């Protein structure tokens, strides 16, 4: 995600990354651990800067969301840091969802809270694209986030788990979108609601090896299965609801990111995209730059709107 965000920034777009995974991997990836620790220690207070800091007053029943400012990680790339305490809010979201069905105002406020926080930060910083980083699960937090997204992108590794995960994701999204349609139709007039129409933008193939310009045979079988599953278990399922939620084609691969072996640890320690790390193989860095630039361009062309999200 940081590679795509950096590539987009290089293309002149302003990107906001939202770490919506209570594990905070994205934040830890981008920011020194001491700084992250400090943020997490202070996130309960009035000067907190994480996503939880913004949510806390609402979660405590003490009032409105706090308006937080994201940090600019590199030119054009902003970050709303994650927080372990986001998992508390995830617990609340289960009840909040029930309240939405009961048409309770507290429910609507709760389910749109993250959306509002992110919209505020995006407006304040003139953001073109918002990317949510989410944990690999189908819990109530990801439900609220995916229903806030205009688009979603699936990072798919060449393994059996990813093939299975696509199926689960497609089914869950289908149910969430339909539930949200009911909730929106019951909602009072003039209340802020999630858009509730996440469009499938495609998947990005990951974690495979190349040999002589081709994906090696052990991974190519999975790559073929992923292509099929992405179509049958996501595109087809979403198109049952609305033809515009996915394309009627097998070609949903936005790009492929091979195993850039030694660039990964360098990138992780430096908090830089693959193609900007100090050291590492120059050919590989160039390859990475070309691939991510192509993915970024694909996303920009496919969305042609102000806000995209993954």
């Amino acid at each position, binding site marked *: 995600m940081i590679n795509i965000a950096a590539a987009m920034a290089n293309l002149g777009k302003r990107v906001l990354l939202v770490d919506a995974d209570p594990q905070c991997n994205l934040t830890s990836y981008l920011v020194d651990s001491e700084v992250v620790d400090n943020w997490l220690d202070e996130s309960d207070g009035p000067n907190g800067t994480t996503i939880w800091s913004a949510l806390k007053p609402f979660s405590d029943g003490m009032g409105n969301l706090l308006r937080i400012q994201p940090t600019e990680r590199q030119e054009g790339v902003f970050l709303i840091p994650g927080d372990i305490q986001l998992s508390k809010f995830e617990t609340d979201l289960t009840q909040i969802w029930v309240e939405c069905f009961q048409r309770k105002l507290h429910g609507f406020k709760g389910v749109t809270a993250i959306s509002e926080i992110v919209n505020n930060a995006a407006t304040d910083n003139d953001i073109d694209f918002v990317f949510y980083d989410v944990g690999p699960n189908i819990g109530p937090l990801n439900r609220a986030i995916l229903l806030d997204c205009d688009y979603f992108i699936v990072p798919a590794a060449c393994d059996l788990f990813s093939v299975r995960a696509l199926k689960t994701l497609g089914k869950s999204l289908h149910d969430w979108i339909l539930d949200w349609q009911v909730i929106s139709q019951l*909602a009072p007039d003039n209340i802020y609601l999630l858009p509730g129409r996440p469009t499938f933008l495609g998947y990005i193939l990951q974690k495979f090896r190349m040999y002589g310009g081709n994906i090696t045979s052990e991974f190519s079988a999975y790559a073929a299965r992923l292509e099929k599953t992405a179509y049958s278990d996501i595109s087809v399922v979403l198109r049952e609801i609305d033809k515009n939620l996915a394309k009627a084609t097998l070609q949903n691969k936005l790009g492929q990111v091979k195993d850039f072996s030694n660039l990964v640890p360098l990138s992780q320690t430096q908090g830089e995209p693959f193609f900007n790390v100090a050291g590492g193989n120059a050919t590989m860095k160039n390859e990475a730059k070309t691939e991510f630039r192509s993915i970024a361009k694909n996303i920009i062309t496919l969305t042609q709107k102000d806000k995209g999200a993954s």
Partner: protein
Amino acid sequence: MKKVLGVKLLRKIDALTAYYVANRSLFNRSLINLEGYVKDSPTLNSLIHSTKFRTKEPDHLKDKLIRKAIKAAEQGQEFAITPENLFVVINDLAGYRILHLHTTQFQEIDVELKRIFAEEAWTIIEGPTARTWDDESREYFSSIGTTTLPHPNLYTSVHYVIQPNSKITCELQVRTLMEEVWGEVDHTINYPHKTDSVACKEQIKALARATSTCSRLVDSIFTSYRDYQTTSNLASSKTKKTPPKKR
């Protein structure tokens, strides 16, 4: 002369009915939400005997639309119901009913209902309107500021039309248990199609009078009971024999 509706119009009515069926769960959900508010209110719980709710049977909607189409044709007007306005024009697709014991409880029920609707952001677009043919009953509703309407069939009930949002409407009825008896008998015999039996019509009219008398009697019993409680409390507090019972 019997009017016949064209195939095109009948298809339109079928499509409207199908549209309702596809969205029926929204009405059901709204009623469940209403039930939740009512059951959560201690004030209403102390005043109400019971509640019931239902969404309209699709066949009954179809009948109603056909009747409306025939009426429009007779008056030389166009049948103007579309999927966009169906849920607002037909406002009894979701019906919620509150039953209580005696007439004068209505005032407190009304105050509490209005409080709930304000709190939960529901809009009252019509009512409360008391349909009543009895002079004394009309006098009571007028005295508490509730609009009254006569009803040719001797029907008695208070109606509200409420909206969770501008897309959906629900009908809310408040009536006494006595009125419910008459209403249920009348409904069973006369709905969806009115009976032609003169005897039944006559008896239902007579039942309305008996019901009104029973309602009046129940009201009177409660008035007497309140009066008795007040005077006996006054008497016991004067003599200071035993402390008054707390209720």
